[in-house]
Structures are given as C-alpha cells and as structure tokens.
C-alpha cells in the first residue's frame, strides 16, 4: 500500500510544519534583504504552492498563472519596505489571496453568498456518518480514493470564495487560525465561523459517498 496516500501520514507533523515554516521565512527574508539568488529561491520554494492555491481559488490555469505573476511582482515591490520582521509567511498569503480576489472580479467565480448553519447540519436524514475514508474502503480503495478526491474538488468549486479561501488556508496550507485572520484581515471568530461552515458544506456534499458495493 502506498503510504503517502494515507491522509494521516500526509498531514504534516508539528515538527515538520515548524521546519517548513522556518525555511519559508528564510527565503522571504532573503528576498527582503535583496540577496542575489533570492528571486530564484522564491520561485522554487513558492511557485507551485502559489499556483495551486490560485487554481483552487480561480479554477482556471490562466488566472492562476496571473496570480503567480502578480504575487511575484507584489512581493518584490513591497517586501523590502516591510518593517515587521515576523510573520512574513502570513504576509505572503495576504498578497496571494489579494491577487486571487482581484482576479475574481474579472472572471467567473462562484458567487459570494452566506452559508447558514441550519442548512448544513445533519437533521433526520441518514447523513450522520459522513464520507467513508479511502483506507476504510478495502479492495476498491484506489478507485474510491480517486472518486472521493474528484468529488472533493467539485464540492470545493461550489463553495463561496470567502469560505473556500479560509478552508484552503487552514486545512490545506495549514496556517493557524490567527495567521489566517491576519492574512485575510478578518477577525478570529470570523475565521472559525467560515472554516466550520466550509467543512460542514464539504461534509454535506460528500456524505453520501461510499465505496462501490456499499450503500449509505
């Protein structure tokens, strides 16, 4: 069995997360301090990450490429003037999400709307258990994993952007609640509310999924 496909092993350990964050900060400091190789280091370290974040937010390769380029330029124009030495990563995600949001005005995004708690909580319908995880799927594990990830991508596209961006930062990029609040310049309770509703909406979209042969 492929270990890397197991969500538990894919979720970063606290130590790895800290190490990754330190390397991120080191590259951003190199950019800020105008080190000669910093541009290439930045592209190598953050290029794909920014692009994939842009793809998830904009759903179009062209927009995601623009998000990457806009970010690169904004980082270079603004980082050297940034006085606050800490939290450069948070600052970077702010630039990235702003680049996504300014694309949004120009492209066909899922419309902004509020997700109400009532519509997302399980009532009497048999959805309490939510989706089955791939490692519980037995022999059809691989087929089921693919189905689940495709359905997750579709469910994510249906999320209103204000919720999707919070889910991306917290659950995919693994920023803390506080960092996400700073990056998006919204309050901590607002981050928590949007994250919770985003997870509930994804849960609801995926709750009926079962490996083939099983029925909810």
């Amino acid at each position, binding site marked *: 069995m492929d270990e890397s496909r197991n*969500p*538990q092993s*894919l*979720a970063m350990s606290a130590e790895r997360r800290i190490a990754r964050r330190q390397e991120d900060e080191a590259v951003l400091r190199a950019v800020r301090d105008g080190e000669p190789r910093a*541009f290439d280091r930045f*592209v190598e370290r953050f*290029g*794909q*990450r920014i*692009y*994939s974040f842009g*793809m*998830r937010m904009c759903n179009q*390769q062209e927009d*995601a*490429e623009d998000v*990457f*380029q806009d970010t*690169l*330029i904004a980082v*270079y*124009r603004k980082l050297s003037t940034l006085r606050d030495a800490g939290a450069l990563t948070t600052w970077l995600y702010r630039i990235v999400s702003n680049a996504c949001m300014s694309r949004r005005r120009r492209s066909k995004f899922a419309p902004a709307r509020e997700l109400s*708690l009532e519509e997302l*909580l*399980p*009532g*009497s319908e048999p959805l*309490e*258990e*939510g*989706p089955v*995880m*791939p490692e519980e799927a037995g022999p059809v594990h691989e087929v089921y*994993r693919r189905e*689940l*990830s495709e359905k*997750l*991508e579709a469910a*994510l596209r249906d999320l209103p952007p204000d919720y999707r961006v919070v*889910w991306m930062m917290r*659950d*995919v990029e693994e920023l803390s*609640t506080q960092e996400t609040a700073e990056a998006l310049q919204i309050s901590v309770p607002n981050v*928590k509310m949007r*994250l*919770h509703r985003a*997870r*509930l909406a*994804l*849960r609801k979209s*995926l*709750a009926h999924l079962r490996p083939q042969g099983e029925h909810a």
Partner: protein
Amino acid sequence: MSEHQHGSGRCLELAERLSEFVDGELPEPLRIEIEQHNDECTKCKKFVESLRRVRDLAHLLPRPELAQERLRRISEAARRRLES
C-alpha cells in the same frame, strides 16, 4: 441509538463549536462538556467523527502543478517587469 435530533437545544448550540473542538481550540469547560455530551449522544459523536474525516480529506486534494518550463517563463516575464 439515541432518538434525539440535531434540531434540539444543546446539540444545536454545541454543533456550532465542533470545528474548534476537533482543532483543539476550545476553552476547557466547553471541551469537557462536549466530551461528556458525546459519551451519551451517538449522533453528536458520529457528527464529530465525520467532521474530523472531512478535515483530513484536505490532504487528499491533488495540488495542480504548472509545467516547469511555464513556471520559468512566467517568472522571467515578472523579472523583466520588475527591472523595467
């Protein structure tokens, strides 16, 4: 199986805090209340488990990748714009 539904009083109030619960971000008294509640309430307990699974699903999401050549070309264009 417990008969109660999520529409009822305390379950609904607690349901609003369950992401904070799975993230370990709740103040102690509320965390303990939810743990005790879930010992008696099968539906809430299952609900919490499903929420945890959904959070872990984020790691199943493939990362769209840009071809290296394309990445290089875009960064070179950015570099030129910065130098001009």
